């Protein structure tokens, strides 16, 4: 049993899904011979042939629109947008068709497609390669949004996403594609698409995050532990539907919550979580809910990108402010 990276978890799940279901087709720019610009689809075309792994013309609207059409006619397309920034032209088909097909036809047609793309910053990439647009997709009815933060969750969640009978946006935190290795058994076991993962138990404060920011969040929790403060760390993982129950239960015990998000703050997913706490979690709150987020400005070119994203220090300062309140 090999230790693999997050991106290898993606590849493993793709191969497994293609193996078990011949209607699964992978498509996108450079996914074929090249195996994807990050190697997420490496080896798949060789193994499954070029009728299962299709290089597309360079046209994102087309990729999304044809995936909708294929999905409605019984295929299970797993489409790739090469980078987060290039998912924007796809929004029309995702929002207006993928998320509506089943509802629109009262269940007659459906849209079991997955749209995968690498997202987030921190790898010195060019403009439009480093955004975290999960909040946009999370606001769209009929769409599931998933972001794994470990190799095992990449494997289990992607398998579930592909098998799911409805459309799923699967965002891959590229900064941690190769951060950690772990043993992943290729047993075809999927993970549920509607629960949070508690990565660390604690009673003093709840830290909520997802994607690559899990890295800084865990580092902050380590630092707190060395100071004798026990932070509970929750990986949201399924952005939509959001498992607020787990978060509210945790904050019910800790009374304090800091949410860490790489995307801009305004109208982000962190705001949804904080809003959930302001409603159903209000009586547990001993201190203001703080959000440590990317700034409400454009993700800078790479030389400044780490200044944009929440650092461990920024997270710790917010935690300290929340802990100070008695």
């Amino acid at each position, binding site marked *: 049993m090999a230790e693999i990276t997050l991106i290898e978890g993606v590849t493993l799940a793709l191969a497994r899904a293609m193996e078990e279901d011949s209607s699964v087709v992978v498509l996108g720019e450079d996914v074929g011979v090249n195996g994807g610009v990050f190697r997420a689809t490496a080896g798949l075309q060789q193994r499954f042939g070029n009728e299962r792994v299709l290089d597309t013309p360079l046209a994102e609207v*087309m990729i999304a*629109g*044809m995936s909708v059409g294929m999905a409605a*006619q019984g295929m299970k397309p797993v489409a790739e947008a090469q980078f987060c920034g290039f998912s924007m032209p796809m929004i029309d088909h995702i929002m207006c068709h993928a998320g509506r097909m089943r509802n629109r036809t*009262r269940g007659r*047609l459906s849209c079991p497609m997955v749209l995968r793309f690498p997202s987030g910053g921190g790898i010195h990439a060019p403009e439009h390669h480093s955004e975290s647009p999960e909040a946009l997709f999370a606001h769209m*009815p009929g769409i599931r949004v998933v972001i794994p933060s470990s190799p095992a969750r990449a494997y289990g969640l992607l398998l579930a996403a592909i098998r799911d009978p409805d459309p799923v946006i699967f965002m891959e935190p590229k900064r941690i594609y190769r951060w950690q290795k772990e043993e992943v058994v290729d047993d075809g076991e999927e993970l549920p698409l509607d629960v949070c993962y508690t990565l660390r138990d604690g009673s003093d404060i709840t830290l909520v995050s997802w994607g690559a920011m899990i890295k800084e969040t865990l580092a902050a929790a380590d630092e707190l532990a060395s100071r004798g403060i026990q932070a509970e760390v929750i990986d949201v993982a399924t952005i939509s*539907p959001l498992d607020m129950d787990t978060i509210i239960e945790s904050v019910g015990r800790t009374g304090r919550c800091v949410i860490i998000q790489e995307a801009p703050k305004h109208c982000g997913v962190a705001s949804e979580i904080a809003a959930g706490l302001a409603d159903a979690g209000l009586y547990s709150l001993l201190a203001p809910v703080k959000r440590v987020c990317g700034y409400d400005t454009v993700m800078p070119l790479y030389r400044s990108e780490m200044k944009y994203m929440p650092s461990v220090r920024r997270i710790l300062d917010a935690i300290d402010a929340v802990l100070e309140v008695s």
Partner: protein
Amino acid sequence: MTDRSNTFKVDYFQFLGVDGNLVQGVKVPPLAKDLDRLKELYKLMVKTRVFDKKAVALQRTGKLGTYASSLGHEAAHVAIGSAMKKEDCFAPMYREYGAQFCRGVEMSDVLLYWGGDERGNDFKNAPHDFAWCVPIATQCLHAAGAALAFKLRKEPRVAVSVVGDGGSSKGDFLEAINAASAYELPLVLIIMNNQWAISVPRSSQNHAATLAQKGIAGGLTSIQVDGNDLIACLWAMEEAVEAARAGKGAVVIEMITYRLSDHTTADDATRYRPDDEVKAAWEREPLIRLRRYLTQAGAWDDAKEDAWTAEATQEVQAAVDHYLDQVENHPQPVTAMFDYLFKEPPHDLIEQRAYAEQYPEDGGHH
């Protein structure tokens, strides 16, 4: 700079003249002699028009929402539907009722849809066809995706989609042409050039001589037909569908017709369209010439027309009755909006559904 890129020729096909005679000096396809078939299609054209008139009337009396009329497009629409096999797949825009009736879509489906009820999209007798598509031209890519699915599964099926003269300016349509070329898709793309995109005339979409030549971008076979000539439309469609089915690649057909109605019942075309243009267009409309042709051939007469109109009117009324019964006596419950979003609704939706059940009647008024 002079170049020769504009030396190409988009062929234009017309077989049936405005006077109901076959056009002289043109090789007419055999189907022009298939009077039984033409008669059946004529009857469907008449029924479509009867239906259309009724739908507009329902809207005017507050019994239907905004409705997009198909007046003037009947030959083109019926030809599209008639040329397709049951197992083919149609991705319509929003006014091709004639085509859809051939495919098994029911008149009451059309009424339910424009009557604001999602059940209109549950085509029981056309289970694979796409629903009406409001975001212009997006349906062309859905059809391309369907065609790719058929090709990958090695099924001898063809996908057909329609876009307007306006919609032919949109990237979705143009990318579909490119995709059809790249994957050699079993796809037929029809540009229904009815001269207007709401208030914007064909000439404002671009200054090219034809819209069909957009197909040249992908090296596709690209032709124009008289969209008011059932024989030409049917011939072109059958050729295109069979070429696509035979793996010879996708075809673009520009059907040249005219939107005799307002854009929809929410529109008032007199604001932007000269009366004499509309009057002239009525001279070319598709029903009368086919009726003349059939009459001259002895396959139709006034008595048949009257009998059929009466029968069609009854059929339409039955559809209207069914529609009104559905929306008035069996309206969708508030929970319906939650029950089809996902196959397995997530927990938060289940909670919202329970909450919504407390407000079953809220907001019935606008």
